């Protein structure tokens, strides 16, 4: 493992505003310090580039507190660029912040753990320090990325991937195995992913976007965010939101099971092939509409619930809303 100091610079700014929309949870606020957060004018930045010995199928564990994590693939040795940025009222305070917050890189036979360390975790510091990681790694790497306040973006990794942030978005693209993708406040977007196992995406307040995803099981959950699954191919899907709308457009496995549930949001279910399915749609007060082109064979007169079969049946589709409307087939 080699260390190359790329840049260490000191700069004064008359005003440095925090990134709009960045939400600092207390952990991040612990780094920030209330006074610095109000009017940081000085900034110090340190960048380091490290070469990591991950081998062809190593495991990489990235954990930071306030800062983004970006991972892409490359053909050469794995590299890690660490950017530490400290903001405070004065240069001296900013430098103290930079000196205080360090990054521990531990390597053990193909497993590398990168973790931000802040010994002053009580939130008394006057400097706001953000530590971001930019990684280039072999596609076969197994990866875990975690941050409290920051965005996570991972592209092209084919090993098992887990991504978690509290305040920030999660963007995963062209991945093969996703164990989990979780944000408390931000959007979770997964595209061009395929896995033999389960894919789990969760947010409390953010949207969940699944595009061109293939998995044995897809699970997505949000409270106030919408869930949109486009061109999804899975044997089982469980999509749940409380107030957000849910849309599923994708293939249906013959023996698959697809559950879409929302309280006040609407549900749109549109299989992308003519294969049949058995439908059980229930709503307390929402309207249920089925595209006539599907030639739906209802089991009884539609009231607040609608059961029946499209085509020869097969896949099981369960849709439950409380007051949201339901649309089956094209709108």
């Amino acid at each position, binding site marked *: 493992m080699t260390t190359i100091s790329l840049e260490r610079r000191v700069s004064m700014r008359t005003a440095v505003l925090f990134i709009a929309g960045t*939400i*600092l*949870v*207390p*952990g*991040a*606020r*612990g*780094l920030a310090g209330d006074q610095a957060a109000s009017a940081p004018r000085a900034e110090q930045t340190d960048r380091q580039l490290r070469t990591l010995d991950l081998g062809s199928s190593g495991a990489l564990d990235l*954990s*930071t*507190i306030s800062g983004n994590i970006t991972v892409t693939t490359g053909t050469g040795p794995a590299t890690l660029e660490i950017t530490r940025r400290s903001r405070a009222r004065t240069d001296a305070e900013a430098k103290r912040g930079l000196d205080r917050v360090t990054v521990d890189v531990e390597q053990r036979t193909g497993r590398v753990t990168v*973790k*931000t*360390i*802040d010994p002053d*975790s*009580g939130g008394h510091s006057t400097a706001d320090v953000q530590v971001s990681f930019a990684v280039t790694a072999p596609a076969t790497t197994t990866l*875990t990325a*975690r*941050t*409290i306040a920051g965005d996570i973006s991972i592209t092209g990794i084919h090993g098992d991937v*887990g991504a*978690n942030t*509290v*305040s920030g978005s999660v963007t995963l693209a062209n991945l093969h195995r996703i164990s*989990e993708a*979780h944000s*408390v*406040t931000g959007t979770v977007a997964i595209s061009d992913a395929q896995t033999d196992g389960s894919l789990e995406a*969760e947010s*409390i*307040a953010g949207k969940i976007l699944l595009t061109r995803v293939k998995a044995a099981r897809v699970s997505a959950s949000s*409270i*106030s965010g919408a869930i949109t699954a486009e061109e999804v191919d899975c044997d089982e899907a469980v999509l*749940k939101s*409380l*107030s957000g709308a849910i849309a599923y457009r994708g293939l249906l496995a013959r023996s698959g099971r697809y*559950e879409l*549930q929302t*309280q*006040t949001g609407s549900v749109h279910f549109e299989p992308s092939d003519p294969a049949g399915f*058995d*439908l*059980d749609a*229930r*709503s*307390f*007060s929402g309207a249920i509409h089925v595209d006539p082109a599907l030639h739906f064979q209802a*089991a009884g007169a539609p009231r*607040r*619930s609608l*059961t029946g079969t499209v085509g020869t049946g097969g896949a*099981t*589709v*369960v849709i*439950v*809303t*409380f*007051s949201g409307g339901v649309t089956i087939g094209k709108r």
Partner: protein
Amino acid sequence: MTTCEDIRPRLSDLVDGTLDALDRDAIEAHVRTCDQCAGLVRDFDRIRRAAQSLGPIDPPPHVWLEIAGQLHQATPRAPVAPAPRTPVAPAWQWAGLAAALVVITSGAYVFLRLERPAPVRPPAAADGSATGSVQVFADELTAAMTHYEKAIAELEVITKTNNGSLDPTLAATLQQNLLVIDDAIAQSRTAFTHDPTSVPARDSLLEALQRKVSVLQETVALMNEIRKGDQAGAAQVAAGFPKKSS
């Protein structure tokens, strides 16, 4: 060991039968004279028996968040410079963990028992033999809602007591979503009250209650990590990583 605070952390051990004779006798003596602890023992025992009858239950991620926070806190720090920090009072955390565990277990129990997501429901049984099971079902539903509401009340006390530890923006976001859930609960409860046979009303009510418990648990877990003062640990635990490593 005579106070409830001393006794309660050991009650689950009592129910599990893992105490030595001396501790067991002391705790049983206390339980015989304390209605609250006796009630907890009954709850633990009922949950344990229910769990045994259900087989393995995969806990939701939030429970790992909660447990990981507790374990992390229990792990001795490396002998570096002593942190000038007020020790974390364990009482509310114990309460939070206990509430979380009780609700998770009972929640799993309730949903496994009550959720019947068959694609096509059979016609409702009309013969008299169904009456007993309907009553049992109604009782279980009432018990489930009582469990949820009790847990929610306890968790809300914890979060309100410690809400200063959360970043205001994050706290506001969580609060907004709790209000969304409250609306859903109120809406579903009203509908269920008017039409107790409505499956969507019942399901949405249970779902909303479970959601609220989950959000409150996550909030408590975050607060736990923040109060511990280990931000790196917060990053790891808040991210929910432990849930997949079990």
